[in-house]
């Protein structure tokens, strides 16, 4: 997790998740998925149904935020 190539992952709370979904006007299922046994998901203790907020470096925008749904 400390490696420079691994972007920051954070589990969103229920209210934050709803806010994100509302802002983008989508259902949960429309988000890209991440396996619950993915090493990153495991290490931050994400459970199925959680939304992860991923903040990564971007060559075009500098910083870029994306979301993923944890799935089994």
């Amino acid at each position, binding site marked *: 997790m400390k490696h420079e190539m691994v972007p920051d992952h954070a589990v969103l709370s229920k209210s934050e998740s709803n806010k994100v979904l509302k802002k983008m006007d989508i259902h949960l299922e429309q988000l*890209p998925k991440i396996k619950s046994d993915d090493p990153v998901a495991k290490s931050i203790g994400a459970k199925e149904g959680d939304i992860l907020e991923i903040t990564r470096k971007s060559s075009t925008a500098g910083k*870029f935020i994306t979301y993923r749904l944890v799935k089994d």
Partner: protein
Amino acid sequence: MKGVLKKISQINFGLMSPEDIRKMSVTKIVTPDTYDEDGYPIENGLMDPRLGVIDPSLKCRSCGSKGGDCQGHFGSINLARPVIHVGFADTLHKILRSTCHSCGRILLTDSEIVDYKGKFEYLMNNEDSLTNIIKEIYTVARRDKCPHCEEEQEDVKIDKPVSIVEGNYKLTPSEVRERLEIIPDEDALLLGVNPEVARPEWMILTVLPVPPVTVRPSITLETGERSEDDLTHKLVDILRINQRLKENMEAGAPQLIVEDLWELLQYHVTTYFDNEASGVPPARHRSGRPLKTLAQRLKGKEGRFRSNLSGKRVNFSARTVISPDPYISINEVGVPDLIAKEVTVPVHVTEWNMEEMKECIRNGSDVHPGANYVIRPDDRKIRIYEETKEAVIDKLEPGFIVERHLKDGDIVLFNRQPSLHRMSMMAHEVRVLPYKTFRLNLCVCPPYNADFDGDEMNMHVFQTEESRAEAKTLMRVQEHILSPRFGGPIIGGIHDHISGAYLLTRESATFTEEQVFQILRKAKMAIPDRTGETWSGKQIFSLLLPNDLNMVYKAEICRKCDECLKRECKNDAYVVIEDGQLLSGVMDEKAYGAFAGKILDHIVKEYGTDRAREFLDASTKLAISGIMKAGFTTSTNDEEIPLEAKERIEIHLHKAEEKVDQLIEAYENHELEALPGRSLEETLEMKIMQVLGEARDKSGEIAESYFDINENHAVIMALTGARGSMLNLTQITACVGQQSVRGGRIDRGYNERTLPHFRKGELGAKARGFVHSSYKEGLDPIEFFFHAMGGREGLVDTAIRTAQSGYMQRRLVNALQDLNVKEDGTVMDNRGVIIQTTYGEDGVDPAKSDYGKVVDLDKLIDEMRIKSGK
């Protein structure tokens, strides 16, 4: 058939049983003839009227609908003896090999059967592919002894394409069919034959379906002769042999004759399905041409799939050779009048355009702004003829649609293959012109990648108002001046536009007022008031620049001096534009060239596409008038250098070659030091390459120093970026330089040497492909050979590169084509799943960006500096 709408919920694939074929058949076909002497189709013949009708005036005897509405009905032929279907010969062979020849059970033990059944059920429940497990069963189910009845099994072989041989005995199709019949349903399933939709024995044909006449229409030649379709010919053959076989069998003919006829029937049925099956001589037409039977209709590039289903031909399109016209706008396309009279635009007649449409109809289909068809509100299409014109005009009222000729100002889609990017299809305004080629402005050559060595392009005419409106806002040429690839102009001046602008704006260019007026008149620009003063070319060009334009940049001719003298630049390469006045610097590729033009880029971004189009149209026209005023030509005289220069180059090259020899000597004496991470040999190669590279560059520089940019047109073109490069000139005048294959010096050919003219292991410059001569002097045979090696590699590489990148592009496009950028910038696929939360992670449209960035701060600051500096 009309108005029947049903939704497909499921598609099942299976085999047709003989019963299915008989049930589907409307008639049995018996007679091998088609028509009788009176030209009427024979009952029970191949053209039986129950098989459907083509002629719209006749009614179908089977379904009662008119020709054209009736899609045809199948008939059938009862085969006297069963034959094998070529398409299934392989499958049949595999099934026979894996089943017992006496009890018909699959050659698996009971426990294996239970095991595989379990796997089958699991996969079917998960809707997974069964291919792999069936393949496995076929490899396991091969035994010498049947596990069920203990019968010894003989090896079954296939003799391509349709003979199945057991041991030394060739099985007849009847025998094969008997064996297949006794295979139980459960075992068939494991062999990949689903008993719900197919039985193995159905792969042997006992009855042959006869396709309807609509599938094999006969053509009546001009001579009145009837010519039948290839399929009909083949069916006639089948019927004839079938008839003879039946007669012989009934007459109790000897076994040998019956078998021969049977064999012949098998051949005809095989070629009826596939006339290119290996091991079968193709059936031929009387003329010797191989027949096009069922498989040939579907297969390959010209087959039904690739040419009729994946690819379609369209109406309202045209294709012809392109040629240049510098006097039309970049937004326009010159359309030959011949084409304009052929492709049409549907116009809804209203009170307001009634008169215009009547005029079009009056002109008819042969006179240019005319019309070809009128569509009445009841959807009847009426062709306009000389005789019917007046009647049509009288009846014309609002609500009619007139298909009028293409005329000036219509929007059409213009395209050149390969359509690799979106600029390969752009919307142009029509300009109807005489002669037979499409005319296009030279500035749009780069996006289409077009030239005029015989290129052809396609034009499509929009048929609805919506499409026209959409094309006009999104696809017009002026909207594509900036490329989404790098956020700079892809449409811009080329070749003579650039040379012309340079000749016009260079320091020495001054014109008398009279000359200025001539140039401006030719460029169709406004003539200013007389002042009686002489003009500089820069002043002329400034007429086109927006009045509030401020820019500073270095021109293409900039020599990248160590210390920039700015406005005092000796080459006049420092461009300064203040308030739309060109104060210093010349106009060249960096000004308004395709891929590079800074002024053009600036105008598009700051003043919009309309202004950019006007600027480009006007400035290219001005440059053309400028170049025509001065005259411009080039020849090998431009590559001529004095003897003194030749001697200097010769001395220089000689020195370099000596240096190479020294390096080799050092290497041989083990005095050469290896560079870090490289072997001694690699170090030597690198050093030699470096020395020889420098030698060519230096000799080029020597040659260049004798060229005069004010006089030498080849140099003008190379330096302004119009065409060619300094390297090209160097190679012509001074030295061609090192030839390379696979990125290194040439080291292939004979054992340890490139040519027998050299000693083994020789490493010298000449022995490894250094071309000392110039193109103008001429190459000696050895040099010529090495040059051909390098040249060949170049050709092969481009051929491979296009093939590879084409395939890569195809796959990328297939993967990306359904992605969609929503209003808020999220990228979704067609299921609505998010691919990217913001397009490109920064939400920037590269075609609207400044070379990929939202803003270029340095540029903004520079401009402000000029504004405040005055």
